C-alpha cells in the first residue's frame, strides 16, 4: 500500500511488570497513510504496547518516536498533543455526559478550560463553544451518531460506544489513531460501517491507523501491512497474504500439535 515515511517508530521496547516481561525488545514502524494491523495471540503484549506508546505506561527500556521525535516518557496528555490518540479495548465512555459533551471535551487549548477566563471572558468562551459544538455535530453526522447527540453516553449499546470512541478520536484532528479491538462485541453490519469509517478517515482526513484486532476477516480486509506479535516481540510483518502463509505466525496462533483453530 502506501509508501509514506514512518510516522511511528518503536525501537527495542521492553516493558517489565515485576519480573513478568510483557514486551521484550519489540521493534516496528508504522508508515504514514496506512492502516497497520497489530495481531497476535492473547497475552502477546499488544495492549501493553498501546499503553507504552500513548504514555499510560513507561518503557523499561527502548525508544518510541513519533514524527521523528521521542515520545516515550511523556505523560498521556502530552502524547495526545503530538497528535496520537487511542481508543480502549473496553469502551470507556463518559457515562453521565451526553454524546455531544463526550466530543466537545476533546479539543485542547479551549479558552474556557482556563478557570479565570471562564469567569471573566464569558463571551469569548461561548463563541468558541459554538464552533466546538458545530465541529462535534459534524463528526457525529459523519459517524451516524447525530440522532443520539443528546443521549447519555452510558445508555448507548456496545457498538454505539465503539463508534463514540472513534468519533472522539476524530474530534482531536489526529495524525495517528490507535484502535484497540474496535470490532469486539460489535454486530457485523456495524462492523462494516466502522470499517468504512476507518477507510474514509484515511482517504478524506489523512489519518494513519494502528489497529489491534482479533477478527481476522476484518484485519485481512482492512489492514496492510500487518504486524504479528507473540510473547512480547514482533515475529512477522507484511501483507495479509504473506502473513497468512508465514509458518511462524501459524505456530504462534496454533501451537505445536494442536488441531483446533482459535
Amino acid at each position, binding site marked *: 500500500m502506501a509508501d509514506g515515511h514512518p510516522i511511528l517508530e518503536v525501537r527495542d521496547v521492553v516493558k517489565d511488570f515485576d519480573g513478568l516481561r510483557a514486551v521484550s525488545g519489540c521493534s516496528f514502524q508504522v508508515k504514514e497513510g496506512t492502516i497497520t494491523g497489530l495481531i497476535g495471540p492473547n497475552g502477546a503484549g499488544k495492549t501493553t504496547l498501546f499503553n507504552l506508546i500513548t504514555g499510560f505506561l513507561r518503557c523499561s527500556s527502548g525508544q518510541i518516536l513519533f514524527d521523528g521525535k521521542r515520545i516515550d516518557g511523556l505523560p498521556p496528555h502530552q502524547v495526545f498533543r503530538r497528535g496520537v490518540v487511542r481508543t*480502549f479495548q473496553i469502551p470507556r465512555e463518559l457515562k453521565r455526559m451526553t454524546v455531544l459533551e463526550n466530543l466537545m471535551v476533546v479539543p485542547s487549548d479551549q479558552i*474556557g478550560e482556563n478557570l479565570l477566563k471562564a469567569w471573566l471572558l464569558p463571551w469569548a468562551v461561548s463563541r468558541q463553544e459554538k464552533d466546538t*459544538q458545530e465541529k462535534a*455535530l459534524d463528526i457525529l453526522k459523519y459517524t451516524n451518531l447525530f440522532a443520539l447527540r443528546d443521549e447519555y453516553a452510558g445508555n448507548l449499546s456496545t457498538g454505539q460506544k465503539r463508534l463514540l470512541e472513534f468519533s472522539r478520536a476524530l474530534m482531536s484532528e489526529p495524525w495517528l489513531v490507535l484502535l484497540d479491538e474496535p470490532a469486539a462485541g460489535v454486530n457485523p453490519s456495524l462492523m462494516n460501517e466502522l470499517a468504512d469509517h476507518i477507510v474514509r478517515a484515511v482517504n478524506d482526513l489523512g489519518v494513519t491507523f494502528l489497529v489491534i484486532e482479533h477478527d481476522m476477516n476484518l484485519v485481512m480486509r482492512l489492514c496492510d501491512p500487518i504486524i504479528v506479535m507473540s510473547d512480547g516481540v514482533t515475529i512477522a510483518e507484511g501483507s495479509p497474504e504473506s502473513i497468512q502463509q508465514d509458518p511462524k505466525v501459524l505456530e504462534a496462533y496454533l501451537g505445536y500439535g494442536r488441531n483446533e483453530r482459535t
Partner: protein
Amino acid sequence: MIDLLGIVDYGVGWAVVAGIYAVFTLGLNVHWGFTGLFNIGIAGFFAIGAYTSALLTTPSPDTALFEDFVFGGDLPSRLGVLNLGIDLWFVIALLAAATACGIIAFAIGFLTIRLKEDYLAITTLGIAETIRLVFLNEGWLANGSRGLYNIPKYLGGLVHPEHYNYLYLIVVLLVLGFLYIAVSRAINSPWGRVLKAIREDEMTAQASGKNVALFKLQAFVVGACIMGVGGALYAHNIRFVSPITFDPLMATFVIWAMLMVGGSGNNKGAILGSFIVWGIWAGTQFLPGFLSDPNIRLLMIGVLIVGVMLFKPGGILGEERRFSNRVT
C-alpha cells in the same frame, strides 16, 4: 397565643445557618459532585476559614485574662480610617479565609491528589482531624480549647441586636448568590466539562489530552476556598469558635447528607439539600418525648438519605442533562 414574631425570628436565625451550610455544600459539590474528589475532611477547611477570619478580626488578646493566643488582628478598628461608610474588614476577612484555605488545599492537594478516591477520603479525614487537633493543642495560635470569642459582627452597629439576624441573613444570601453564580459559570464552561470528564473516567480524560492532576488540583483548591468562606460566615454568626465546633459529624457528614439529598452535581440541589436537611435537624427538636433526642434526630437524617437514595438515587434535584443548542 402563638408568638408569630418569635417564630419568624427563629426562622430567620435558622435560615442564616442553613444558608451558611449551603455555602459548604456548594464547595463540596465542586469536589465531589463535579470532579469526583472524595473529600471527607470538610471540617478542616471549615476550621481554617473560621479561625482565619476570627483571628484577623478579634481584638488583641487581653493579658489580664491570661489568654494564651498571641495574635488578634482587630481588623475592624484598625481599618476605621478606611471605612468610608462601608465595612471593608468583612470582605477582607472573607477573602483571607478563602485564601488561607486555598493555600492549605494546594499543599494537601499537591501531595495527595493522585490518590484514588477512597485513599483520598481517608487522607482528607485524617488531615481535617489533624488541623482540629493543632488548633486544640497549640494554645498560642488560637487560644486552644478555650476558643476565640468577641468575634465582631458585620455591620453590627446598624440594627438592634434583636434584629441582627435579619441583616446577617441578607449578607449570607448575597454571598451565597455570588458563589452560586461563580460556581455555575465555571461548571458550565469547558473547565467544568473537563472536571466532569475526570469524574466519569480519569483515563478517558487523560486520553483526551487533559492534564488530569492539574485540573483535580484546581478543583480541590476552588472547593476549599468556598468552604473557607463558609467557615468565615459561620464564625461571624456564632461569634465564638473552638475546636469542638469542627467535629466530623456536624462539620463534614451533615454537609455530605445535604449534597446527597439535594442532588450531587446540581448547584440548586446542593442549596435545596442544605435547607431540607437543616430544616429536619432543627425542626425535629420540637418533637415530643424521646423523638427529640439528638441521636434519634440524626437517625431521621439517615432515614432521609436512605429514602432519597432508594427513590431518587441522584438526589431530589439530580444532575441536569445539557442539551445541544438547537441547530439544524
